[in-house]
């Protein structure tokens, strides 16, 4: 069966062009960039070239880019690194209640180590209110970490304003840009950020490589301790093929971003409209317009997410209930709960995220298959029966919400 992949937010296929540029670095140009002989210096020159490309894409300087093993490491590095380097100044960190686990968990770890954490609420669309950030800042605040775009509901946070507030108060500001980089414009100066994490496999680069932007002058201690690589900020032999591939992926993304975003927005709006037209008792999760071009997230009342996913998979459609990395958990998504969804409705959410290879027909196919799946599962649901007897206009009110 031909699979229609609609889970690009979880990971993307590596672009064949990317794989092509990586290949020589496995077998021929395999030198260790720290070695002084030619084979090593050649590898070094290649990764420095890539660092430059990524810096340009982010509006940063080369020396401000540190390669990591992905988004999670970037977030751990930024949060723990700033916390440990600045604990003499204060122990207060501000973040939001819709962050990715790769931000929340390092924060919880620091909480156990004596740091004081504030998890800001969001509104029903998933937006952090910059005023809440301002109010949360105390004399002891050393770091604010708010994500750029939400991985589950696609909401784009007001990073620029939050960054301005952070700067006014002389507090370091980190943003998890894993979902936005390569998809919408990300410029570290425009966004007023001091640290920013990205991950290659979210933009058609390889898995296992990412980068952390650290603004010059920012006090951070290393996360990976060891050798002198990355100007002593991140030890371990550099993943040279990964870095080279990441660079190519960024290059391609920069070239086609605007065009792709336009195409994806059209598909997104088509799917949203189609679902509203064909299925009742639903609600769109996340901000209606201030959202990623490729994200559609719906709650379907009376049915449970996993059973929808499995049914879609049986029809050759790969979608998600939200974050892939929490699929081993039985809890409904903390993001949907933070948006104010009741547990049982949060349990019934589905995320479709599109990408470079998504076609118009794929959306048609989803619109053909999904209503039947929802209908079948609802016919099996003890909740649907009761609700239906009680009220018949909840779908309408849900739409208007």
């Amino acid at each position, binding site marked *: 069966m031909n699979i229609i992949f609609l889970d690009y937010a979880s990971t993307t296929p590596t672009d064949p062009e990317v794989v092509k540029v990586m290949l020589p670095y496995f077998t021929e140009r395999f030198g260790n960039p720290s070695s002084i002989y030619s084979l090593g210096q050649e590898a070094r020159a290649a990764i420095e070239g890539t660092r430059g490309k990524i810096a340009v894409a982010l509006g940063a300087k080369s020396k401000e880019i540190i390669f990591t093993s992905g988004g999670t490491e970037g977030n751990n590095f930024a949060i723990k690194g700033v916390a440990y380097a600045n604990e003499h100044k204060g122990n207060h960190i501000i973040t939001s209640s819709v962050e990715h686990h790769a931000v929340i968990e390092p924060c919880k770890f620091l909480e156990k180590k004596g740091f004081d954490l504030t998890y800001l609420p969001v509104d029903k669309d998933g937006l952090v209110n910059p005023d809440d950030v301002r109010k949360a800042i105390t004399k002891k605040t050393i770091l604010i970490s708010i994500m750029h775009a939400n991985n589950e509901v696609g909401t784009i946070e007001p990073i620029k304003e939050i960054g301005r507030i952070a700067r006014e108060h002389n507090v370091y500001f980190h943003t998890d840009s894993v979902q936005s980089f390569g998809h919408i414009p990300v410029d570290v100066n425009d966004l007023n950020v001091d640290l920013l994490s990205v991950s290659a496999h979210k933009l058609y680069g390889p898995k296992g490589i990412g980068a952390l932007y650290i603004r010059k002058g920012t006090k951070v201690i290393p996360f990976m301790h060891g050798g002198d690589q990355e100007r002593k900020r991140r030890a371990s032999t550099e993943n040279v093929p990964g870095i080279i591939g990441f660079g190519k992926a960024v290059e391609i993304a920069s070239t086609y971003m605007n065009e792709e975003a336009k195409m994806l927005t059209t598909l997104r709006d088509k799917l949203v409209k189609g679902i509203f037209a064909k299925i009742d008792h639903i609600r769109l999760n996340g901000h209606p317009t201030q959202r990623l071009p490729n994200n559609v997230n719906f709650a379907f009342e009376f049915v449970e997410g996993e*059973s929808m996913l*499995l049914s879609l998979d049986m029809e050759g459609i790969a979608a998600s209930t939200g974050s892939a990395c929490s699929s081993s958990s039985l809890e409904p998504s903390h993001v949907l709960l933070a948006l104010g969804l009741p547990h049982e409705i949060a349990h019934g959410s589905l995320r479709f995220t599109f990408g470079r290879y998504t076609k118009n027909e794929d959306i048609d196919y989803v619109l053909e298959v999904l209503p039947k799946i929802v209908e079948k599962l609802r016919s099996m649901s003890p909740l649907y029966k009761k609700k239906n007897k009680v009220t018949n206009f909840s779908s309408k009110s849900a739409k208007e919400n």
Partner: protein
Amino acid sequence: MEAYSEKVMEHFRNPRNVGEIENPDGIGHVGNPLCGDIMELYIKVEDNTIVDAKFKTFGCGAAIATSSMVTELVKGKSIDEALAISNKAVAEALGGLPPIKMHCSVLAEQALKSAIEDYIEKEKKTLT
């Protein structure tokens, strides 16, 4: 998460005994929408034997498959035999469940027990 067994997927794809029984002899109702799993199990009893069983379930793949399996297992069984069906038996009949989904088999066992208890309660009332 670990993958589901073939058998689980088969029962998920074609669940047996979906629906309600009109005038059932017992109804079991377990689970909680907060947890993402609700099962309703209906039984028809004749001469102390479960002659029919149906279910309605809100829940994940495993919840639907265990509901389907428990209704299959219970049909034709005496009340005592039915009470002896454990969650393990349901899971085993499905070729196993991923560890984090074992609670679904517990729910299925509970739904069955609760339906039988309902039946016994009703019987008592009829007798007195």
